[in-house]
């Protein structure tokens, strides 16, 4: 049976199983359908009710001395009079009259106190809602026509805050009327004190508080949706004793895990969709959109659909993580214990992303979870999101998800998890219990690459020179950091896992035929790549940032000795990248993936590591060629040769920009294609090289002891 069919069988069964579980249905269907309308209805009604009650309540205000009490009383009555006149003028039953503020005359209750201390104490003791202290007991000072009004309030008390608002509004109304009168008396124009009147028209699509928090709620709901099925399908299966019979049927662990992982993703997405539908229905059908609009805009229905699309890769990632974590657990309870810290860890970047000041740029682009929350928010608020940001978020999320599924595959069905009742983490992590193995497993490869990716991104962001700085620091630091991160650390990890380094990194000698193929491709590939680059430039132009950075690097390089240029441009990157991408990554994929998926995955990862998505296609194409010849020859020496020659020619162009003339070419620029005979020669040589690699008998596998059957690091426990 084909793998897809097996995975499909597992998928259908697990989905049926989990959907028949009452707990899933309650968590997934009942909670969102009932919860949101209830929550929203409840909170809105509570707020409205409270506001209505506050509007009818008495406002108890204190002043110091009878004179001040009289002044306040007089002001309240004066305002009441003015409001009554205004209402008459507008017509008592008109809509405009209904919108007039209500007078405080029936609600305010004024107490007067002997001194200020007493007044303050009464407010603090919450016997009074507010206090008022006028600087002058008289109406306004004759000298400058002003009186200072001090409102005393306890802003932590809702009623006090409300009272402050009512009094302030009343004083403002009175002030406005007085100003109007004064202008009339002095025969000044109405807008004497306001020569310019500023109005801002907001052209952004309406956003709201809901738009800010909805992505986080949905992210949370997606996680919650993934937890229960992830536990049930892994630790639950083991606890109920069905895992042993499942493992004894002739289905590879990988297919089982992928089937289960897809079910978890489906359930998480179903949960998120239902949540979204329920929120939308509550808002739009329930008529709350107007209420929300009053507090700062609403969400367009189209935005909801966009968020849902964004949630798909996120659901994939979360399901991968949850399945991986729960695969290590032996019981339901143990799995729940593992899940809690994971949720916290996931919510931290999510929370950072939810801060209004955080933007989708720099490290946030590759921060797991955080990048998704930000992308969802930006899309929802109608911010300008560039396509390569979207691509970066989706690609990095996919990379992390792949690593998580790989971990799950290696953990699920491991002897110590399937059978041991009391095996501890020590037995899983203890190096003593690992078996020697010749090949790295997929999970090893993907874990290392997934950890390196944000690290490398972060390092490059820190190193990238400012506007006026030279690129020397970037070049120098990359020259030593790349070997450390790409080679030394992965090699140390492999040693820890007791993997044979020569095999893992494909350090094998090869036949002359592969070397000849490599040399042909190495000296000619730059020509088709140049042509491709010219075509792409013609189509899209160069991003200015890329142009600037390339120019800056070229300038710095031109000032360096030739040997340094060769080291920095050719030797170090070629060695490090071959060891990591064609060595560790491709060799680990070789253990459990077919030829073309392995080649495609490794070259896509290779390209993503170069960050400039503008060069993604070109880098990926080069990666394809390198991975192909490495796969065929089972050695990185041919691909290393190609990489060295290719980058060496790049270095040559920097040191001797005019070297093309030796080939009888005019000095070329990045914008002009080569003459047709050069292109034909270049493409021809590369194709002959590829053809030689294709026709060469694929090198036979060295004698390998397979890494532990269920995926190393293999630990066994009693």
């Amino acid at each position, binding site marked *: 049976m084909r793998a897809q069919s097996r995975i499909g069988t597992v998928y259908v069964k697990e989905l049926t199983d989990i959907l028949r579980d009452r707990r899933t249905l309650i968590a997934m269907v009942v909670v969102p359908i009932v919860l949101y309308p209830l929550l929203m209805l409840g909170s809105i009604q509570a707020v409205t009710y409270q506001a209505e009650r506050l509007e009818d309540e008495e406002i108890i205000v204190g002043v110091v001395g009878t004179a001040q009490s009289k002044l306040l009383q007089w002001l309240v009555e004066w305002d009441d009079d003015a409001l009554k006149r205004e209402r008459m003028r507008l017509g008592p039953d008109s809509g405009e009259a209904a919108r007039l503020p209500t007078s405080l005359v029936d609600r305010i209750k004024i107490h007067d106190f002997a001194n200020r201390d007493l007044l303050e104490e009464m407010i603090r003791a919450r016997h009074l809602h507010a206090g008022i202290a006028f600087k002058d007991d008289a109406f306004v000072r004759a000298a400058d026509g002003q009186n200072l009004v001090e409102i005393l309030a306890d802003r932590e008390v809702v009623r006090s805050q409300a009272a402050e608002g009512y009094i302030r509004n009343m004083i403002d109304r009175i002030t406005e009327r007085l100003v109007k009168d004064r202008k009339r008396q002095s025969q000044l124009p109405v807008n004497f004190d306001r020569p310019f009147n500023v109005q801002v028209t907001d052209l952004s699509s309406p956003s709201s508080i809901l738009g800010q928090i909805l992505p986080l709620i949905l992210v949370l709901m997606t996680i919650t949706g993934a937890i229960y099925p992830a536990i049930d399908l892994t630790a639950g299966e083991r606890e109920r004793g069905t895992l042993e019979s499942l493992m004894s049927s*002739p289905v590879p662990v990988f297919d089982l895990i992928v089937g289960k992982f897809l079910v978890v993703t489906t359930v998480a997405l179903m949960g998120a969709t239902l949540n979204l539908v329920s929120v939308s229905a509550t808002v739009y059908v329930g008529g709350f959109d107007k209420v929300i609009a009053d507090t700062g805009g609403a969400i367009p229905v189209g935005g909801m659909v966009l968020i849902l699309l964004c949630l798909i890769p996120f659901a994939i990632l979360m399901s991968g993580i949850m399945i991986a974590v729960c695969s290590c657990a032996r019981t339901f309870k143990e799995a729940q214990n593992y899940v809690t810290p994971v949720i916290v860890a996931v919510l931290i970047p999510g929370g950072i992303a939810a801060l209004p000041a955080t933007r989708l740029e720099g490290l946030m682009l590759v921060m797991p979870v955080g990048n998704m929350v930000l992308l969802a928010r930006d899309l929802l608020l109608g911010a300008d999101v560039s396509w390569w940001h979207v691509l970066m978020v989706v690609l990095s999320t996919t990379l992390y998800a792949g690593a998580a599924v790989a971990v799950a595959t290696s953990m699920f069905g491991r002897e110590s998890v399937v059978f041991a009742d009391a095996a501890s983490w020590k037995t899983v992590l203890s190096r003593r219990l690992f078996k020697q193995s010749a090949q790295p497993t997929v999970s090893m490869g993907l874990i290392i690459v997934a950890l390196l990716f944000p690290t490398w991104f972060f390092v490059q962001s820190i190193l990238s020179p400012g506007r006026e700085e030279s690129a020397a620091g970037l070049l120098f630091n990359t020259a030593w950091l790349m070997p450390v991160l790409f080679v030394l650390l992965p090699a140390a990890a492999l040693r820890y896992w007791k993997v044979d380094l020569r095999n893992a990194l494909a350090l094998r000698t090869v036949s002359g035929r592969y070397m000849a193929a490599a040399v042909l491709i190495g000296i000619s590939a730059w020509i088709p790549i140049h042509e491709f680059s010219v075509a792409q430039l013609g189509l899209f132009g160069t991003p200015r940032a890329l142009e600037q950075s390339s120019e800056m690097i070229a300038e710095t390089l031109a000032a360096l000795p030739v040997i340094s240029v060769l080291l920095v441009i050719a030797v170090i990157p070629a060695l490090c990248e071959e060891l990591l991408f064609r060595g560790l990554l491709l060799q680990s994929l070789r253990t459990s993936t077919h030829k073309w998926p392995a080649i495609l995955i490794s070259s896509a990862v290779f390209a993503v590591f170069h960050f400039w998505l503008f060069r993604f296609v070109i880098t990926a194409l080069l990666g394809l060629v390198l991975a192909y010849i490495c796969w065929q020859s089972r050695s990185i020496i041919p691909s290393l040769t190609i990489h060295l020659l290719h980058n060496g020619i790049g270095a040559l162009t920097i040191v001797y920009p005019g070297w093309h003339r030796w080939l009888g070419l005019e000095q070329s620029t990045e914008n002009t294609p080569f003459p047709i005979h050069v292109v034909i020669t270049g493409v021809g040589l590369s194709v002959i090289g590829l053809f030689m690699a294709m026709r060469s008998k694929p090198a036979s596998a060295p004698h390998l002891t397979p890494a532990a059957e269920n995926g190393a690091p293999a630990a066994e426990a009693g």
Partner: protein
Amino acid sequence: MDMVVAHELVKVFPTTEGAEKRAVDALSFAVGRGRIYGLLGPNGAGKTTTLRILAGLMSPTSGSATIAGHDVSTAPGEVKRMLGFLTANTGLYQRLTARELLIYFARLHGMEPARAARRAEELVDRLNIAEFAGLRCGALSTGQKQRVNVARALVGDPPILIMDEPTLGLDVFSNRIINDFIKRQREAGKAVILSTHYLDEAEEMCDTIGLLHEGRLVAQGDLASLRAQSGEHRLSNIFLKLIERSEDAEAAVK
């Protein structure tokens, strides 16, 4: 050709304290077509570990085992295709019906949907499952569950059956159905390995009996030869006698 061959099997469990536990120690035996091999021993003798190694679920620390010619360490996929594995405490998917469960495992064995459904019906008939085939497994009695389990182990029609205490905790009626079924499998030419606690069951069912004690095979042979070796008649007495003798021998060596 022997369908199951175990050669010098050793399984050592590392423990976190550093001491090692030899659960299976230099175990060798073979089972041919149409034979039932009984693995007998007290709790913790290493029966279950041995059977799990044979089923390709655990890898041996050293030694080798082949199932229908396939090595359990290097070809676990082939091994799993060749055998039906059953344990006493195997759970069933509570929320699937018995029939759905059988069809699911038939599909996992690579059968097309129509064939999987036919195979499930065959097993439903043969193990008298029909009356509860439409019920969810969570609602079945212990005996009914075990019958479904036996059917599940046989779904791929494997030439080899490994049954770890298949009648543990069953009533007489279910016990009879399962034991008769196992005997019919022998008649059909399958190789069966049976581990059990019930000595009279072993007496009744097994062609060859291996006595396992602390990971080692103390004695092996048909009932007659075991009687001759020990001078006892009843299997339980044979059992105790031989274990006693092996412990004495061990003490003497030390």
